[in-house]
């Protein structure tokens, strides 16, 4: 099948400086990453991504479909990925809950795709129009069974663009649904977003199988534990199932196969964590207190850090760009050097549990909880920094 | 096959004749083929197969007309028919010329 060039060469990547909100930037990032299949269901505050995709896809040769619900949206992008497209869906808390079973299917069948969750306050319908960071543990453990995930959390509209491309790259590289954990503030914040020239955008293509057809096994992995993929319609006669399966993709319902199958799904992320984990550190060396934050909470933390420094407190910052896998080795290392690790997050302690676990009592760990609906007051973060510096 | 009159093309047309193939150990003894064979070619074997079912057995091989029904209805892919190159004539003597 030939790929006709877009009628306007600049239609795909809108190179230049723009004034975009995080949702729109995420949509542009997806298009720049090569996403050409989108299935979604409207939900605040993620809808603007779907709206942007719906208006942009007809110009760039993509297919947009609004499904009947989030269960369908998630299933459809898995189908789209096996059909040979880079695929994405977007949602918020309630829809994310509905997607969980099929996120598990994506993990089990090793299907590359990107799931965006523009988080709002929960539980249940909660605060549809107000922010939250309360789905962080759901991202990690929301689908049943044992598995590892990759989740990213952007802090600005620029990052919504850049990290969406990274998310697609990681999903193709490690073959799994990558969770893009935005929040309402980042999604609806409008800032300058610079879109680089198309040739400067690092797009990672699918790991196509290149060997002979006869010897293809859908789940035979190399040393990096990630198998190569084919697409439906190329006569490989693949069988793909959500059941525990062997290298042929055939269901095998016993403990031995479960051990091989599930261990590899987990190990392909754990073993490659060094390649996956992205943190953004600042002034960590010699700091007494390090603020560990992600998403919109990082933006609030930067203000508190500036105020603390004005008071003479040696404070550094670690921003979790990838929230999952959690950078536990780095946090453990820091915990032996600092007095306290401080974490503001818009929930009552989710990633904080990981922080505590990684710090293992080597230093104080302070949570600055927040129920959601609005971001932290920087003074609350400042107070925690002061407390940690004591 | 019996006709109410001798077919006009009886001297040069022959009704098809088939050979029944059975993979007896794949059979789960449902009896669909036996019951719905239009020519009653099959019966349950008195023997058990490896799974413990009674597979079909061909009792009237000469009656098979290769209609393919056994092959289509079998849920186990265990029986089918193929054309028998050695066609046999119908029983023209039984039908009187029109």
């Amino acid at each position, binding site marked *: 099948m030939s790929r006709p060039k877009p009628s306007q060469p600049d239609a795909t990547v809108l190179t230049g400086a723009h004034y975009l909100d995080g949702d729109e930037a995420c949509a542009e990032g997806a298009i720049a990453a090569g996403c050409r299949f989108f299935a979604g269901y409207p939900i605040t505050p993620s809808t603007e991504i779907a709206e942007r995709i719906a208006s942009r896809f007809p110009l760039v040769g993509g297919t947009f479909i609004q499904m*009947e619900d989030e269960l369908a949206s998630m299933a459809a992008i898995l189908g789209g990925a096996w*059909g040979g*497209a880079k695929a994405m869906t977007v949602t918020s808390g309630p829809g994310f809950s509905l997607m969980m079973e099929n996120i598990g*299917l994506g993990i089990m069948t090793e299907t590359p795709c990107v799931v965006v969750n523009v988080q709002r306050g929960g539980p249940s319908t909660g605060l549809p129009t107000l922010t939250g960071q309360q789905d962080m543990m759901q991202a990690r453990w929301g689908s049943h069974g044992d598995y590892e995930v990759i989740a990213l959390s952007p802090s600005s509209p620029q990052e919504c663009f850049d990290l969406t491309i990274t998310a697609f790259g990681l999903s193709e590289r490690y073959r799994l649904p990558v969770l893009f954990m935005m929040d309402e503030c980042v999604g609806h914040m409008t800032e300058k977003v610079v879109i680089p020239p198309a040739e400067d955008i690092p797009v990672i293509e699918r790991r*196509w199988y290149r060997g002979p057809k006869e010897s293809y096994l859908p789940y035979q992995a190399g040393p990096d534990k990630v198998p190569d993929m084919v*697409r439906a319609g190329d006569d490989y006669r693949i069988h793909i199932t959500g059941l525990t399966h062997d290298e042929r993709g055939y269901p095998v319902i016993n403990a031995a196969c479960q051990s091989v199958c599930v261990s590899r799904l987990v190990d392909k992320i754990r073993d490659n964590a060094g390649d996956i984990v992205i943190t953004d550190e600042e002034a960590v060396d010699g700091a007494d207190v390090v603020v560990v934050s992600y998403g919109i909470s990082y933006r609030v933390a930067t203000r508190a850090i500036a105020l603390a420094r004005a008071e003479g407190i040696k404070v550094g910052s670690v921003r979790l760009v990838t929230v999952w896998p959690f950078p536990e080795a780095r946090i453990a290392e820091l915990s032996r050097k600092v007095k306290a690790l401080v974490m503001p997050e818009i929930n009552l302690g989710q990633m904080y549990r990981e922080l505590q676990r990684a710090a293992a009592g080597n230093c104080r760990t302070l949570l600055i909880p927040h129920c959601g609906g609005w971001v932290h007051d920087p003074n609350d973060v400042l107070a925690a920094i002061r407390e940690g510096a004591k | 096959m019996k006709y109410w009159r001798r077919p006009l093309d009886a001297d040069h047309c022959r009704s098809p004749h088939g050979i029944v193939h059975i993979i007896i150990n794949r059979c789960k003894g449902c009896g669909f083929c036996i019951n719905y064979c239009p020519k009653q070619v099959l019966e349950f074997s008195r023997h058990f197969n490896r799974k413990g079912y009674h597979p079909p057995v061909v009792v009237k091989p000469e009656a098979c007309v290769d209609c393919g029904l056994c092959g*289509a209805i079998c*849920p186990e892919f265990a029986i089918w028919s193929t054309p028998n190159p050695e066609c046999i004539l119908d029983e023209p003597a039984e039908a009187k010329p029109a």
Partner: protein
Amino acid sequence: MSELLTTPAPGGPVVEEERHPHEPFLRMDRIPHIWCSTCGLGTVLNCYITAIQRSSVPRADHTIVSGIGCTGRAAGYVKIDSFHTTHGRALPFATGLKLANPRLKVTVFSGDGDLVAIGGNHLIHAARRNMDMTVICVNNFNYAMTGGQFGPTTPEGAKLTTAPYGSYEHPFNIPFLVDSCGATYVARWTSLHVREMIETLVEALNHRGFSFVEVISPCPTVYARRNRLGTGLDLLKYYHDSAEVRHGADTRDVDISFKGRIIVGRFVQRCKPTYLDTMDAALGRSVGKEFVCYEGPMQASDGRS
């Protein structure tokens, strides 16, 4: 005993080593399948494989998607690209496959519980969109894989483990449901009507748009046993006695009652633009010259197209 078994039966060859003509289309390393003796699922699968070969679609383009349940296992036995998805979600998964690679002939092969109960929302919307795919819905009137619970197709009065005193819910008339939602090809047969089923499946596979074939099929182990209906063979005899072929029947009239008549035939066959037809046409009209039609799936690096 094995000696006796491999001895040709009197008067006819019984061949052990030969290969069934469908074997090139079956994952023989997974045969025998899991379905019970006198279950009709194998028959429907058998007819589907015949229909694939008789359809005008090249083999490589045939793709089968199943959900969960006894029927959901069908995908695992056919040697074409096959996907065994989650419960109820075969249709949206299939929708994604079709839209990402419109060349594919996607068939959803699943059960009544999967398609009409948990997947009911997707069924009505796939029909409404006239999504270009074929759905084979094997209806055995119950959830068999989990041991025989009643479902949305169980006839009133039938006893099942979660309806021990008989089901008192009004069942769906599935052809009417999909017809009223916009399906452009609707047919029903029983697993006894193999020739008609094959013909219909070939038509359904060649049909452009949402084609839906319901196949009434015996569940001997749970449905028939609980309701003292005998074996699957006895149910085939019931189909034989109670089925009434009525092509073009008004789908409002084809509901099924417990031990009642079963109206079969091709009920609906109409032409209507498919989802992709309307999408491309509408976008082409409104977006104009700047519209770029979906460019197809990513090219695999070895140049396959």
